[in-house]
């Protein structure tokens, strides 16, 4: 129908626009109202996000970027404005006074306020990844592999109409994400369990060894994000129990002991996926465990891991498949069991296959194509970014290095997985 109108010189374009608009109204939604969180996290679009703040608040946030002080702001995206939001500096090693990483809480000053159904979102400043896409590519791959992970997109961020730079728009790990990722279990929407953000303690690497019966060390590492008003025993008691049992139980008896308390299969999948992308600062990080959320399912004693902050991925194509398995008590014991070992290498194979699989219309495997697509999407914005802590030449070098990762990594993983499991070596393995 619209094509016929367009083709007719007797009907002006303005009339068509009016008709389309009226139809949209009749459908019960204005064009702006049709926006959803999926649109905000649409990874194929380079968005523009505007923050309207008081100029001194913005200066104060940059000066005191190590603090978590909130400042009021209006956020604009795609013609929509959410007022009365709270913005603060965020991050650990990525904190910056030049290009601050930001957390936007829509419910900071109004507990019931949401934006596109979201209570908050993260604007990742991309200061630790010169390519700009490591984390978003990783999260996309994790989603393909069934690993709980946030959605991400890219945006040029403007504060008071001044371009600050290129940011990743990251879905916050909160009740909305929990409901989206875990859905409904036994008729119970999984959005009200115990959620913890793992707190990396500088100089105190932790590899799942038992920290004693007192709950303080667990409280220090697992920062409660929901049910803050519950007792310490309610919040951290089950974690202490999980760690204690992991340490005290022989490897042969570990699975039945832990299954009620930990989704082992999900953990193995998560660690294997992290290994595939050569993540050096994750569950088996170089300085102990790091960068994850931990969720105790609603009305359950079982815990699951949720991926977070994967911008140290793609370290090298020959990143060993058993990196630091021996160091982490839980991982070492799980790998002593043939079932979990087989599953671990099975997920690595699955990841390699998924990365190598060419999608419809693509000449190259999914991982390389996705990297190239994202790099192309952000290219101009990255080069125009006035605040990034690296040069355009460094970004170009990082881009090239990243694009060199998939092919050798896929081969390496396929060959080494076969060797580890005693399977026949695929063609091309030396």
């Amino acid at each position, binding site marked *: 129908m619209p094509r016929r109108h367009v083709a007719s010189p007797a009907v002006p374009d303005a009339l068509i626009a009016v008709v389309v608009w009226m139809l949209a109204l009749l459908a019960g939604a204005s064009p702006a109202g049709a926006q959803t969180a999926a649109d905000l996290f649409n990874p194929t679009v380079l968005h523009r996000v505007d923050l309207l703040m*008081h100029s001194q*608040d913005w200066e104060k946030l940059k000066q005191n970027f190590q603090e978590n002080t909130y400042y*009021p702001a209006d956020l604009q995206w795609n013609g929509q404005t959410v007022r009365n939001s709270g913005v603060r500096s965020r991050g650990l090693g990525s904190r910056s006074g030049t290009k601050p990483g930001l957390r936007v809480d829509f419910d900071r*000053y109004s*507990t019931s306020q949401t934006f596109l159904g979201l209570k908050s979102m993260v604007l990742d400043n991309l200061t630790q990844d010169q390519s700009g896409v490591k984390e978003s590519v990783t999260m996309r791959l994790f989603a393909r592999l069934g690993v709980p992970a946030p959605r991400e997109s890219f945006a040029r961020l403007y504060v*008071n109409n001044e371009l600050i730079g290129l940011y990743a728009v990251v879905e916050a790990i909160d009740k909305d994400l929990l409901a989206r990722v875990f859905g409904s279990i036994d008729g119970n929407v999984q959005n009200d369990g115990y959620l913890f953000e793992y707190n990396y303690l500088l100089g105190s690497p932790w590899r799942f060894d038992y920290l004693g019966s007192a709950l303080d060390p667990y409280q220090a590492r697992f920062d409660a994000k929901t049910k803050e008003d519950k007792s310490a025993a309610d919040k951290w008691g089950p974690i202490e129990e999980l760690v204690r049992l992991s340490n005290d139980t022989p490897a042969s008896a570990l699975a039945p002991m832990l299954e009620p308390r930990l989704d082992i299969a999900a953990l193995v999948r998560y660690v294997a996926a992290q290994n595939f992308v050569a993540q050096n600062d994750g569950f088996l990080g170089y300085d102990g465990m790091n960068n994850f959320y931990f969720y105790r399912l609603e009305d359950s004693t079982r815990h699951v891991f949720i991926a977070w902050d994967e911008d140290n991925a793609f370290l090298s194509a020959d990143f060993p498949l058993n990196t630091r398995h021996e160091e982490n008590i839980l991982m070492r014991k799980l790998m002593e069991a043939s079932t979990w070992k087989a599953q671990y290498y099975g997920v690595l194979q699955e990841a390699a296959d998924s990365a190598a699989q060419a999608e419809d219309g693509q000449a190259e495997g999914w991982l390389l194509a996705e990297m190239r697509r994202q790099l192309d999407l952000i290219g101009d914005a990255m080069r125009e970014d006035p605040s990034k802590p690296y040069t355009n030449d460094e970004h170009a070098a990082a881009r090239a290095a990243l694009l060199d990762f998939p092919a050798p990594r896929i081969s390496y993983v396929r060959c080494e997985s076969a060797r580890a499991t005693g399977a026949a070596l695929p063609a091309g393995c030396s």
Partner: protein
Amino acid sequence: MPKRTLILAVMAIVCLTTAGARAQDQAGQTGPANEAERGFGWRNERPSLIFGEDVYVSLRAKAVFDWRGFDPDLEEDTFDLNVARVGLKGELTRHFDFEIEREMDEDGVWQDWKDVYVNWDTFDLFQVRAGRYKLPFGLEQNLGRTEIDFIYRARISTQLTPARDKGVTVSGRDRGLGYEVGLFNTDGDIGKLTEPQFTPGAEDDLGPTFAARVTATVFRPFVGEDAALRSLRVGVAYTNGNLPEGLNSLRGETPYGYDYFEPVYVKGRRQRLGLEFDWTPGPFGVRGEWIQSREDRLGQGLGNRDLSDFLGTGWYVYGTWIVTGQDKDDNISMRRSVLHGGPGAIELALRYEQLSFGSASSEGLPERNPRAEHLFENRDRIWTAGVNWYVMPHVKVVTNAIHEDFEDPARTPLSGETSFWSGVLRLQIVF
């Protein structure tokens, strides 16, 4: 605890000694001191060093002990050494008087200076005071602790008035009409800047503040000496001072220190307007005040827009009745104190008050962020019922039942709860 006990013991000893001396005075030596009197003695019911008829220095001391209970439980301390102060007050010839007072905390550590001033009072119509003392704003704020009828001052007195500062005041009184006009260094202790300042040295930009107050016993020229209306007094007061940019506004705070309205960003002027009345016919007392603070928010909105004024508005009204019959107008007589075998004086008191904070603008949806054009208002409404027992000179026992009700459930001492009860028993020793 030992320091607390020590303070209590010292105060009790001095108090009993003072009371004994007063009893002697009342037995025959009331009135002006003998011209020949020198050395240690009693002036104005306080132990004093007397150098002559008009030259003396009196010791002042205050200790206030509170026992408290809360429903629902707010995890507050159930005991509080509310204040311990010592000071000197005296006259230097018939033309000058002075006061020096400093506060001590529960651990016996000296805190801020309270009053430090000299007053030139040769003429009734024109007196000059200089030093640190309370700005002439707020009826109840300018009353001493012994003169207030409840354990806690009304919220408008503690949140909207300036209280003490360094300055100079000219004042006078004639036939029931009084005036006070002063200029002060900043804007008083209550309005001082407590948040970190974005601009270095911004705290120095607070003030100076101009303050003025006029009071009148309006019926005095028209009624006889014994007429009940003679004591009715009304007044109006005003302050105006510079307010530096920052999170520097006045705030809403409960008697127990919870901020139910945190400071918002302001810049410009801070003004206050106060109306007051006070009436003490016989054993009854009626008192009320209305105060509004108005603070500019120039360029404080998102995108540096001007915002509507930030308003703090509140009032209280209360009544008292001395059921043992003493007159409320002057110092309550202690002729029937427990030292003389009587009940002392027993007074019933009831007060209603409310204090709200919000913006002058009510356009658009109200918001809680400190740069909102239309601020989400919060209001604290308080009923206080009390019994005051004037046991003997300088000693008072007060019990208050307090009910607070907040408008915004998100900003109360327990989020989601709007109604709170508390009870306080106070032992107050002041001389």
